[in-house]
């Protein structure tokens, strides 16, 4: 397997801070950071009413499909997408080629403002993700995984 994604306390807290700030600065309803494979990483704003797991998986599928279209058209990628709804709009962008930044917003905000704020947040996120990659590469073997025994795995499946 390649490129295992690892998240540490420090970086998650920084990513959460970026989400919170983007949520405030862009007057958004909610902000999500999702791994390209569909795992939710962080969220801010009005997320209680959202099914974050499903949203993450579908958004990642959407981004993957759009990426597939891009490569058919000999484009590297379409870095941003915008979906306009009656009540909620969705702005989707790829950050550092690795994670997906989703902003849900309504009439309290505008596409222009969201785009502007996303740009700044993306720069911040890229810095954090670079640090995360550096950190996980310098600690390749994670202690918790090495400690897992065959019995631990068997116990998980005992009915």
């Amino acid at each position: 397997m390649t490129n295992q994604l690892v998240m540490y306390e420090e970086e998650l807290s920084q990513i959460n801070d970026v989400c919170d700030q983007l949520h405030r600065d862009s007057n958004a309803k909610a902000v999500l950071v999702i791994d390209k494979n569909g795992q939710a990483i962080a969220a801010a704003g009005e997320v209680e009413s959202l099914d974050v797991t499903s949203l993450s998986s579908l958004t990642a599928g959407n981004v993957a499909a759009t990426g597939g279209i891009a490569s058919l058209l000999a484009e590297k990628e379409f870095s941003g997408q915008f979906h306009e709804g009656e009540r909620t709009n969705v702005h989707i962008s790829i950050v550092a080629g690795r994670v997906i930044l989703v902003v849900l917003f309504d009439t309290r905000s505008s596409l222009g403002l969201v785009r502007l704020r996303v740009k700044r947040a993306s720069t911040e996120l890229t810095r954090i993700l670079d640090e995360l990659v550096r950190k996980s590469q310098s600690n390749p073997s994670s202690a918790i995984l090495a400690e897992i025994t065959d019995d631990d795995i068997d116990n998980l499946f005992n009915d």
Partner: protein
Amino acid sequence: MSFINYAQREINCKIVYYGPGLCGKTTNLQYIYNKTNPEAKGKMISLATETERTLFFDFLPLSLGEIRGFRTRFHLYTVPGQVFYDASRKLILKGVDGVVFVADSQIERMEANIESYENLRDNLQEQGYSLDKIPYVVQYNKRDLPNAAPITELEEVCNPKKVANFEAVATKGVGVFDTLKAVAKLVLTELKRGG
């Protein structure tokens, strides 16, 4: 690609159900969804056509319990089985940690099984994976049908690497959880080995 979240103490893995059209991949997920406690599962999503053929994927998030204080969460996906959806299948295989190859036991579907197995091997290779290394198991579904081929014959064409195989009747749930447990176990064992 597994996702180890130390901050939230979670291990997240992705399992893909692969196989020819109408072999029962979606039925496997539906049975798992119906039989799992509400607190251990999320919503099942099916992106299907009007005739209920999978168009892009089915998705089911499952929580299997804790290992050493880490919650283990599995995201189960199916691919669309019909031959012309190959581009979608390739996308869904991205970041996969374990594969279940669901074969249709009906003798008439032997060709379709072979084609799908070869397609799986090729698409994995394209993503930089190999059937020699990735955790995977084979499920022979529809064992209750009168035209089901003998297992030995199916093994020859669908399981040249002789990985674990399971006989199943997914509509009734026979073999469904055995298959899931086997692949989940392989994925965790691979993770532990530092894969």
